[in-house]
């Protein structure tokens, strides 16, 4: 286990190094100049040059890259051009919303996707299965922002049950009840992903149900429910667990849209606005953090997979 984890971690670091190059150079290749965003169109060339020198943006790009890298290694992601504040703090401010949104969404995906997938598989071929699979197909095909808009329309505008936008921190007034602001966004974000997990769980259950060892389990005389839960589901989950890694990647990109639709002060919003402001340090910081998170989640998925499946050698 130890050496496997080390091997995987080394691979993750290599990926990270490659990603850092791409992040840095691609962002600087975007046309546009942050200085004009900061100073406005009326700025004189002298003012712009002075600021450029002050921010170090006049240095050769390769030099800038290594300087950035050296700072990153020390935990310093630089200073936001727009906010004039450390990037780490800018990201931290948006992180609460995004982490909570992602966590609640993952809970929805697991709680809806897996059990409903199991039910669909158990009733496979019935009208119930066809309805569930149909709805799942529909949800998987509809874009998140559309689902989000309809959720706002129904639950916020018509029924008035839930707030339509924004999110005050749970550390501010209202405390944990502020989580209700994340209910609609997390449902919108969960919908397509839960649908995919549902379909995968169902398909995987049906595959496993055809295996010889399920016939053995039935021949032993154990009850059908136990065959389903202990034998079929246990094996079917192997495929589902590895899908959670992809799901997380999907969440990252879809969160950008969802946060915009629901006006949430999260990382997704921040990255969109930072791109418009050409706030290079913030964009780089966010992408870097995202890449690290993504690698960490996949590493975790891989390691847990090895715990779930004894056939995979642990060395």
């Amino acid at each position, binding site marked *: 286990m130890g050496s496997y984890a080390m091997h995987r971690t080394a691979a993750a670091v290599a990926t990270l190094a490659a990603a850092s190059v791409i992040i840095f150079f691609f962002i600087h290749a975007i046309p546009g100049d942050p200085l004009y965003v900061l100073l406005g169109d009326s700025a004189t060339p002298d003012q712009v040059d002075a600021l450029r020198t002050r921010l170090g943006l006049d240095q050769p790009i390769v030099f800038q890259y290594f300087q950035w890298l050296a700072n990153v290694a020390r935990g310093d992601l630089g200073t936001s051009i727009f906010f004039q504040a450390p990037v780490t703090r800018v990201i931290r401010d948006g992180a609460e919303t995004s982490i909570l949104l992602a966590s609640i969404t993952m809970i929805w995906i697991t709680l809806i996707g897996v059990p409903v997938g199991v039910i669909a598989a158990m009733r496979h*071929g019935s009208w119930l299965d066809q309805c569930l699979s149909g709805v799942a197909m529909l949800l998987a095909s509809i874009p998140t922002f559309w689902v989000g808009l309809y959720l706002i329309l129904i639950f916020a505008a018509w029924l008035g049950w839930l707030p339509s936008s924004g999110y005050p921190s749970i550390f501010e007034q209202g405390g944990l009840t502020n989580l209700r602001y994340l209910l609609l966004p997390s449902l919108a974000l969960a919908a397509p992903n839960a649908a995919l997990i549902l379909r995968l769980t169902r398909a995987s259950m049906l595959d496993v149900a055809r*295996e*010889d*060892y399920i*016939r*053995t*389990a*039935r*021949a*032993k*005389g*154990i*009850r*059908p429910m136990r065959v389903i839960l*202990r*034998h079929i589901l*246990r*094996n079917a989950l*192997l495929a589902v667990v590895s899908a959670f890694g992809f799901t997380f990647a999907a969440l990252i990109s879809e969160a950008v849209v969802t946060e915009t639709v629901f006006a949430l002060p999260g990382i997704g919003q921040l990255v969109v606005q930072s791109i418009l402001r050409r706030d290079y340090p913030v964009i780089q910081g966010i992408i870097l953090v995202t890449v690290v998170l993504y690698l960490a989640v996949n590493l975790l998925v891989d390691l847990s997979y090895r715990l*779930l*499946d*004894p*056939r995979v050698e642990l060395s």
Partner: protein
Amino acid sequence: MLRVRDLSISIGGQTGFTDIVSSVSFEIGKGEILGLVGESGCGKSMTSLAIMGLLDRAGPWVRTGRVELAGFDVIHSEPYQRVEAGHGGIAMIFQEPMSSLNPVMKIGEQIEEAIAVHQRTPGAKRTLTARELLEMVRIPDAAMQLDAYPHQLSGGMRQRVMIAIALACQPQVLIADEPTTALDVTVQAQILSLLRELCDTLGLSILFITHDLGVVAQLVDRVAVMYAGRVVETATVERIFSAPAHRYTEALLSCLPDAAHRGQRLTTIPGQAARPGQVRQGCTFAPRCRYAVDVCASDAPPDALLPGDHHALCHFPRGVSP
């Protein structure tokens, strides 16, 4: 011990069905091994799954027939229903030991699961019972192997584990569906002698399904020969090999390679086995039979009874002058 009466298994709907197994009847006495022999696709595996209650809901279905276990009709009941009704007594082992064990469960757990259902042993004692079962099927280091996963064992060992699971069900009847087909010849011989021993020591009745006549000669007491969904001949193993009555059995035996005819062409039965529903009247073997006459193609063959409880579904069984 086990009596199968008039078992027919069909595909298709309630109307317009086609029998893939027709009116199969046989019985197995206590401590007896009955070999169910036939070519691939003749319906022998389907018959065993139907007896076991393991036919898929969506697939072939039992149209008629009874399966009596110690006097109770257990047809149409799945294994767990039999357990709940108090006559669990049929266990089964399968052709593919490689894929018949749950890959993510320890061997011990898989055996204990069966013990829990069939023996009502308290939790702590189950591990001990599981170990005893592994010892009974001659697995070395039984205590250690309880913690092994199936992929850590060889094919022969896995088949032994399958037998241990079957024994955990405390069966009166064991159905063995080609249990040695996927194994090496040496391992095959070990498994066969283990089955024979269990049969003798535990008084287990075994329904042994195979297409291998060599295995039949080695192991079984009586033989039921199946052709195109029907049992065409039943007799003791000695009679089957020395005096086969049905023309199909005779043809089948003549296909066995023989040292005396070394260098000559191997014998085959011309044509192909009748598919389900293909032969609508007369004897299903008639189209391939060298001895067939008009009546064979038009009338269903009678059940000819020969001396020594020897049955053959044939108009002109061998050894009986017309």
